[in-house]
């Protein structure tokens, strides 16, 4: 059994930032990562990271950043947390710069900032349209400099928990196929979003939500899971992200009739309204027959000129060319909304602490909540560095008064994983077993069809029923024939599907219960926001039968909810 004071699960931006912070504070910290850390999906973030530096417009302020975030969140964010988050933003971004992040520059050498959706000022710092790659590699580099321990290509499968909290975890070493046990005083979950529970998503193949499921099984509630962000502009065909920066730099959206349709939905902000509004606008155009091939609209950037495109948006130009055969310097890019971000996640306080002792969470897998019902562009990389650092600090502080005592809890977790593998292999030997990949495909289609951009009771009920049926089928019939031990992708994918199904159910059940429309959650049968009954966070607690829902109030400090207009 390996032993470290702090174990970080996930080698993306939040996990790496947490590890760096814990290490700087003297803790013995190790990162377990399913893929090599520099492969983590944080690298795919494109447009930027928000901080009220005031480089583009000195009248910007922390308070304006906080207000934009709260309003963008459709008032479901906890305002105390948002204020601290926007305050920390400045130091976290300047620190990235000191650590060598290749930010794009204004001619005077200061960090450049660009306009982004839902923001009152050009506040988004960027590295061309590859900001996630730039920022995450910078933190990864510093983790290497500081000598953080890495266990790479480890699929963490269960947390080991007893009445005194988290004691350790069980992981599979993909390179050997062996199960390994780890002992810890603190475990920080930083496993990213759950995009892959949807058929159309910008997320990587490894953004499964499995980390959320592990925390949920360990007793931490999942908060606000029904709030899913659909990014307005994903490439038609592959749903690869086409950054909001394309619109921030002046790109416009046109329907098949050549109309700049955003004027009907957000006359003031137009294409730079928050994502939930633009995504619904595009999908409304398509559903009402004004799209192309009943699937997409056009994103036009050609008028920006080749020079600006190649300087500010080189990656999206190349992605459109490679994956859609379109030269955006001359032609429109075909785009449609796709799942992009999970606003909900493991419930934490402002320091990443969960209700389970010794368990922390940061980044997309967590819900503080600063994004409420809709996250603004440029706020997710920021969340990773702000709350990654906070969780790392909290864990390093707390381990001083915690003890190693993992044996029983870890053995129990290990048995659970071994039983699951045995069961999958046993069924895999039977003639009529179900292919987990088929179950996964049906789950993803169900989520897109019934728990998508537009929702209603009938669809959600059908979705919940289907998910419950798939979950039952998974436990009763899913099988993987016994195969090679080393890098057994089929086995790992089947194990991870268990968590995906449970997470999908929290999204669907939360959406069915919430009879209002707010941010990313839109009910055609309840099209208005209902602050009287629903200005509250959803909490989903695990039970073997499915999620048990509860609610908690939203923290309001400075900004009483008003109607959201753009």
């Amino acid at each position: 059994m390996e032993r470290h004071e702090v174990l970080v699960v996930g080698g993306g931006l939040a996990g790496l930032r947490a590890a760096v912070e814990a290490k700087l504070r003297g803790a013995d910290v190790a990162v377990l990562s399913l893929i090599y850390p520099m492969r983590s999906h944080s690298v795919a973030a494109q447009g930027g990271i928000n901080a009220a530096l005031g480089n583009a417009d000195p009248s910007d302020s922390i308070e304006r950043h906080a207000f934009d975030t709260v309003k963008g969140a459709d008032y479901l964010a906890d305002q105390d947390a948002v204020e601290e988050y926007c305050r920390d933003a400045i130091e976290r971004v300047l620190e990235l710069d000191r650590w060598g992040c290749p930010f794009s520059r204004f001619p005077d050498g200061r960090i450049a900032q660009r306009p982004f959706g839902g923001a009152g000022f050009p506040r988004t710092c960027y590295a061309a349209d590859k900001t996630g790659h730039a920022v995450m590699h910078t933190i990864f580099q510093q983790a290497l400099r500081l000598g953080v321990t890495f266990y790479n290509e480890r699929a963490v499968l269960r947390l080991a928990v007893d009445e005194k909290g988290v004691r350790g975890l069980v992981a599979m070493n993909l390179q050997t196929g062996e199960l390994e046990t780890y002992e810890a005083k603190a475990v920080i979950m930083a496993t990213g979003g759950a995009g892959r529970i949807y058929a159309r998503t910008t997320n990587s193949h490894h953004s499964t939500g499995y980390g959320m499921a592990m925390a949920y099984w360990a007793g931490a509630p999942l908060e606000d899971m029904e709030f899913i962000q659909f990014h307005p502009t994903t490439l038609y065909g592959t749903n690869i992200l086409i950054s909001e920066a394309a619109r921030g730099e002046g790109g416009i959206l046109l329907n098949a009739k050549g109309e700049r349709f955003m004027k009907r939905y957000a006359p003031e902000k137009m294409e730079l309204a928050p994502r939930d509004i633009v995504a619904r606008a595009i999908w409304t155009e398509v559903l009402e027959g004004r799209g192309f091939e009943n699937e997409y609209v056009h994103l036009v950037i050609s008028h920006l000129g080749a020079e600006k495109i190649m300087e500010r948006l080189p990656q999206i130009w190349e992605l459109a060319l490679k994956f859609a055969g379109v030269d955006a310097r001359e032609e429109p890019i075909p785009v449609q909304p796709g799942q992009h971000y999970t606003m909900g996640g493991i419930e934490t306080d402002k320091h990443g602490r969960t209700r389970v002792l010794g368990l922390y969470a940061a980044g997309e897998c967590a819900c503080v909540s600063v994004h409420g019902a809709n996250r603004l562009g440029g706020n997710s990389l920021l969340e990773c560095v702000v709350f990654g650092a906070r969780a790392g600090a909290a864990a390093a502080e707390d381990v001083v008064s915690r003890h190693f005592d993992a044996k029983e809890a870890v053995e129990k977790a290990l048995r659970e994983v071994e039983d699951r593998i045995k069961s999958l292999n046993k069924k895999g030997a039977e003639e009529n077993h179900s292919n987990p990949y088929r179950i996964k495909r049906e789950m993803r289609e169900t989520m897109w069809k019934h728990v998508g951009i537009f929702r209603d009771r009938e669809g959600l009920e059908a979705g919940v029923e289907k998910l419950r049926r798939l979950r039952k089928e998974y436990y009763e019939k899913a099988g993987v024939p016994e195969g090679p031990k080393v890098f057994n992708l089929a086995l790992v994918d089947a194990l991870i599907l268990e968590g995906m199904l449970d997470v999908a159910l929290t999204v669907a059940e939360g959406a069915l219960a919430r009879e209002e429309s707010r941010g990313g959650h839109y009910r055609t049968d309840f099209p208005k926001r209902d602050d009287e009954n629903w200005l509250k966070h959803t909490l989903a607690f695990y039970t073997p039968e499915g999620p048990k829902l509860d609610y908690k109030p939203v923290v309001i400090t400075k900004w009483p909810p008003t109607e959201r207009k753009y």
Partner: protein
Amino acid sequence: MAPKALKEGEIVKFTVFRFDPSKDKAPYYVEYEVPYRPGMTVLDGLLYILEELDPTLSFRYSCRSKICGSCAMMINGVQRLACETQISELGKRIKVEPLAHFAIIRDLVVDMEPFLRQMEAIMPYLYPKEHSSEPRVDPKEFEKYKSPSDCIWCGACVSACPVASTDPLFLGPAALTQLYRFAVDSREREDVKPLRLLIADSEASGVWRCHQVYACAEVCPKHIKPGSVIAELKRMTLKARLVGKI
């Protein structure tokens, strides 16, 4: 990029390298039939094989949008990312093999550890200065490290380099490109700079081992030109030596 006339549903034959060092005496190839759909990439084809035809196949992948660097492999004999390679570019027969000159863990999964040791050997991180406020960066300086910063650590250039593939001591194009990237960054402590150039100047492993073949630049999916970067690093190293800085 003239697409060959592949129709939806048409069969594409994937010839895939298979090898499990724990039980196979030698590698072998298996042929799989993959029905084409428009926009299908080599990665999509491999995923189809895994999910529908053969759950024992192994390979690395993640982002599917050429930014994570997981899926560098030999495709019809050339180092490429599987995720960005359109089947329509290649036609109806595709041969997929692990990244050349890397040890094989299983099938298309190679041992990245020697590559990572090369990267770590050049200290791929900035030693930060203490700044009281936001540093100013001359846009001209930014231009120097802009392209090298795009590296995704995929290993394609090292696999293609005729020196790196035969000489385990040579730091290789990826690591030397990163060395340059930090050497020209003024946000780093000055006292680290000579050390960087000393590493570059190492007779056994540094820039002088580069024969300027430029195979690296041909395969880099991020359009970095490691050969040219190393040539610049040679000039910097030589200059530092001449003025007695190293």
